[in-house]
């Protein structure tokens, strides 16, 4: 078995390991780019693909949304309460709302939505199904028409559905958290709307809003593409999984953390 990590490789094999890792990352990026281009090309959306995309959306979003929303609302309510009560005890209640919006809406909700979708849909990629797709990408980069059709039929609807699932969960729960935050700080009263709106406006600066949207979309893409790419690559190279762990899981977590860290760095550094 070929070593896949520098720690377990002999120094003479380090070059090969690095090249293999780079090729793997390139394959993932290439597959993601191809899926993205196909998602934006109108010819993808024929009748069969629309049905497939609808089924994927139904599975990854419609069935997940209520439970995730319920759980997320519960956890958010607890966190909001903690923040509001703590800030009140320190006499810093003016900053509680801003902190809740910044921490929950901008950071925690998108990340938890991405992780949830990754566990529920992205990492539940069927290896048997992947076998059929592995041949389609074998002659990459010059994809044949047949391979493209297979990608269109199988991969693209799933990528779209997963990305949409992350976006939906993040947006719905962000709105719910905003409502909960208002109710916790001002109670059931309409007189705090003006102040609340100004606070939200202060938090959502143009750069922050664009970063929030970009981050959510990148989360969606990562969740959709990375596990699929990992399995396809494994099948294409005829490897067996090294462990019972889902292929691409570590890379997915790494990429999610990377995106989150980059987002934080862009906003606060």
């Amino acid at each position, binding site marked *: 078995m070929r070593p896949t990590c520098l720690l377990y490789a002999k120094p003479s094999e380090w070059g090969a390991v690095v090249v293999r890792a780079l090729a793997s990352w390139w394959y993932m990026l290439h597959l993601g780019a191809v899926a993205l281009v196909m998602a934006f090309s109108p010819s993808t959306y024929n009748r069969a693909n*629309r*049905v497939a*995309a*609808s*089924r*994927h*959306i*139904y*599975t*990854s*979003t*419609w069935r997940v949304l209520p439970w995730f929303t319920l759980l997320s609302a519960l956890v958010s309510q607890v966190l909001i309460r903690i923040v509001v009560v703590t800030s009140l005890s320190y006499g*810093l209640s*003016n*900053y509680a709302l801003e902190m809740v919006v910044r921490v929950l809406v901008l950071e925690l909700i998108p990340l938890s939505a991405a992780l949830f979708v990754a566990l529920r*849909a992205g990492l*539940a990629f*069927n290896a*048997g*199904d992947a076998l*059929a797709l592995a041949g389609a990408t074998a002659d990459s980069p010059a994809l044949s028409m047949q391979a493209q059709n297979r990608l269109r039929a*199988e991969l693209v609807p799933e990528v779209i559905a997963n990305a*949409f699932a992350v*976006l*939906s969960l993040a*947006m*719905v729960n*962000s*709105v719910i958290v905003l409502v909960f935050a208002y109710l916790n700080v001002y109670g059931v009263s309409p007189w705090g709307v003006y*102040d609340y*709106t*100004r606070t*939200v*406006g*202060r938090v*959502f*600066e*143009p750069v922050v*809003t664009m970063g929030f949207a970009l981050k959510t979309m990148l989360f969606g893409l990562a969740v959709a593409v990375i596990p699929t790419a990992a399995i396809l690559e494994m099948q294409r190279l005829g490897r067996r999984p090294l462990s019972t762990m889902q292929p691409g899981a570590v890379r997915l977590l790494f990429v999610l953390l990377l995106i989150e860290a980059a987002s934080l760095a862009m906003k606060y550094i």
Partner: protein
Amino acid sequence: MQEPKAELPAEPVAHVEAKAVVLLVLIGALICAFLLYVMYARGVFEKTQRLVLISDDSEGVIPGMDMTFSGFPIGRVQRVELASDGKARILIDVPRKDAAWLRTSSVFTMERSMVGETRIRAFSGILTDPLLPDGSTRTVLRGDTTAEIPRLVASARALLENLDTMTRTDSTINATLTNLQSATGRLSGRYGLLGGALGSDEEARKLLVTLERIDRLLLKTDQRVFGKHGVMDDTQAAVLQLNVVLKDASASLKKVDAVLAEAQAIGANARVATEDLGALRAEVDASLRKVTRLVDEINRKWPFARDTELKLP
């Protein structure tokens, strides 16, 4: 060739496409509504007017922060830029409906507290003044708590050092307090204030003895001076006698005055006589000079005239 996917429902779902479309539309609407709300919250749809505040330090001022009037946010910092003269220009957008609170006489302050963000506040004392025109430039007054801290600490340190000096065992105040304590101790002694003022009860006792002696002395003096056959009676008799003597002296002086008048008349007569003597003397002098000339003439003409010439050897 393709197996059914594990995560997809095994049996076909009713109206799956319609449900997907509904979901897409709802999420799309939610995103649009959220974006519109954020834009509204950022004041994109409000008509605003520009206010420029000039400050020598813009630390803590960030775009998006509020300017308040009576605690209500009425403006939002749009941009902070550095002017050509090195001062900070804070560009604030004030909504038209809130601009009524800003007058030409309004004052703007920027406060930095130790905890929390910088605050920009507007104060309008005279609300009947004209409205602040669009694009006005005003200087902002700064109140910096943190800048005051070093000065405050320096003052507090000096104060504490002084306090330390004052409260040391060998300090002046301590010595004063000790003295005060001993003084109050004496005040509460047998002789009270007198003992406190004189230093000890012994001194106070001596003073009291002295006072008693003086009192006795005064009593005796009173008897000797104002009593029967005292000094005052003798003095009165002496004064009466002195009055008589003075009357006699006055009469004598009158007599002396008459004598002096007589003497004055005599003096006047003597002065006239003296003047006559002067004329007489002048005549005698003239006669003598004539006799002298006559003698000299006779001597020259006389045969026994002497040779008056001097011959040098």
